[in-house]
């Protein structure tokens, strides 16, 4: 059986140890094997067990304001599109991971929000994002069940959706086929050091020496960084998603209110919900998105569930009679400036990071992985890594 950890500890050296078997770790492992590196992935839990397992599967350009994150999203979007056609066991990667190129629809309820959305779309378009204005009276052509209480919106044909757990599992499988080893239920408890240099990881079962260690531990990335004595301030931002009973495909796009963009960028700790509604290949409708900074508190918040439901019913009145059959929560790994941490850490040579993608890790994973792979083999990264540098936050500030 593949992937069962060997009973006797191995001490084979890998070029790269990836800490974290979520979507970012999986994508990085895949890209690293593509550039010829030998890879070991290690995770304290199962594959895709953290934030990836609680994600909606967004691959979005629409919610990104111009800046480094949009650059990364554009790169990632191209990566997803090219990987989609990869033949895989009689089908394609895209079909195996339920990649849907269905596009996003951002709607604004009033003239002020529409004006803001129009400004954003104009800026995005200059950078290569397709954003097509849809007047309020034409919105039913694209979403027949949408409330008529909307001023207008923009279509983003490049927005996509993927089943994130399948995506991570298949990327890991492709990496394994290229020789990678995946070790699960094995926490990294320490880093191997040679002076300043990070030379591998230690788990309760074995030492894994490596040319480089990649911290792709998502919401837990701060703890891995701390093992190297460096600070990467990734913290959890809780979110709930409601899942409805299965329905026919009555919602065609990923549909969300324009205020979502403001909420994503917000620094408030209090509960915020901005309505995001989308159908899935499985027939269920996913309803997001709430954001709260409450640490790793798994308690259910009735206000959060209620606000999500109210938002969905307001946007799609047809959902009023539809039953919620499930809800789940996840913890987005966010950094204070809402940008991910990508690239080598000058403070601890040999340690690299790919973490802190907040709620966009699924979409940004492939672009991140490409940049990491380029940086590992000494090629100039396609995008300037400076905005994502790990030491940009300064020393720990006591709170």
């Amino acid at each position, binding site marked *: 059986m593949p992937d069962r950890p060997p009973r006797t500890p191995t001490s084979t050296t890998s070029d790269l140890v990836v800490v974290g078997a979520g979507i970012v770790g999986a994508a990085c492992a895949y890209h690293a094997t593509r550039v010829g590196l030998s890879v070991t992935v290690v995770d304290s839990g199962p594959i895709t067990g953290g934030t990836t397992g609680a994600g909606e599967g967004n691959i979005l350009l629409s919610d990104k304001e111009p800046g480094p994150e949009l650059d990364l999203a554009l790169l990632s979007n191209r990566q997803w599109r090219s990987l989609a056609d990869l033949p895989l066991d009689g089908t394609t990667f895209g079909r195996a991971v339920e990649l849907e190129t269905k596009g996003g629809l951002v709607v604004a309820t009033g003239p002020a929000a529409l004006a803001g959305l129009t400004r954003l779309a104009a800026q995005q378009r200059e950078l290569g994002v397709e954003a097509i204005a849809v007047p309020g009276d034409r919105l039913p052509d694209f979403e027949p069940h949408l409330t008529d209480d909307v001023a207008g919106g923009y279509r983003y044909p490049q927005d996509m959706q993927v089943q994130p757990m399948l995506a991570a599992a298949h990327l890991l499988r492709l990496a394994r086929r290229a020789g990678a080893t995946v070790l699960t239920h094995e926490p990294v408890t320490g880093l191997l050091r040679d002076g300043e240099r990070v030379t591998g990881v230690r788990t309760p079962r074995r030492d894994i020496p490596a040319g480089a260690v990649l911290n792709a531990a998502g919401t837990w990335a701060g703890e891995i960084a701390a093992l190297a004595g460096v600070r990467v301030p990734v913290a959890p931002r809780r979110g709930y998603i409601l899942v409805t*009973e*299965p*329905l*026919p495909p*009555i919602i065609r796009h990923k549909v969300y209110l324009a205020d979502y963009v403001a909420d994503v960028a917000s620094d408030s700790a209090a509960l915020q919900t901005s309505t995001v509604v989308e159908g899935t290949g499985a*027939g269920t409708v996913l309803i997001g998105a709430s954001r709260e900074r409450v640490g790793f508190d798994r308690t259910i918040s009735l206000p959060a569930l209620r606000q999500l439901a109210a938002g969905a019913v307001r946007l799609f009145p047809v959902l009023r*009679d539809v*039953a919620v059959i499930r809800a789940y929560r996840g913890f987005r790994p966010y950094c204070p400036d809402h940008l991910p941490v990508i690239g080598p850490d000058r403070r601890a040579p040999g340690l690299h990071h790919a973490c802190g993608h907040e709620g966009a890790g699924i979409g940004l994973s492939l672009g991140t992985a490409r940049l990491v792979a380029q940086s590992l083999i000494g090629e100039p990264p396609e995008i300037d890594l400076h905005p994502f540098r790990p030491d940009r936050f300064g020393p720990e500030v006591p709170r």
Partner: protein
Amino acid sequence: MSRPHEFEILFDGTPLPCRDGWTIGAALTAAGVRSWRTTRHGQRPRGLFCGIGICFDCLVTVNGQPSLRACLVPANPGDDVRTQEGTAR
């Protein structure tokens, strides 16, 4: 007005006898009907399974409202019960 102890409900247009206090699922079963739904993917016939509201296999459309559990819904005189294809929406 008191309810009759025995009445009829309609299943896909056909009258079936029913007793007051029966669920829709009981009335269909008593009439020998075994399935009243097809699945979303394989279009397989389904009917009563757990009988206590746990499994949702017996979903049916009653008076135009889809996806009700036949094993829970009390039958009323003249109820229009229809076979549900997939999600019936």
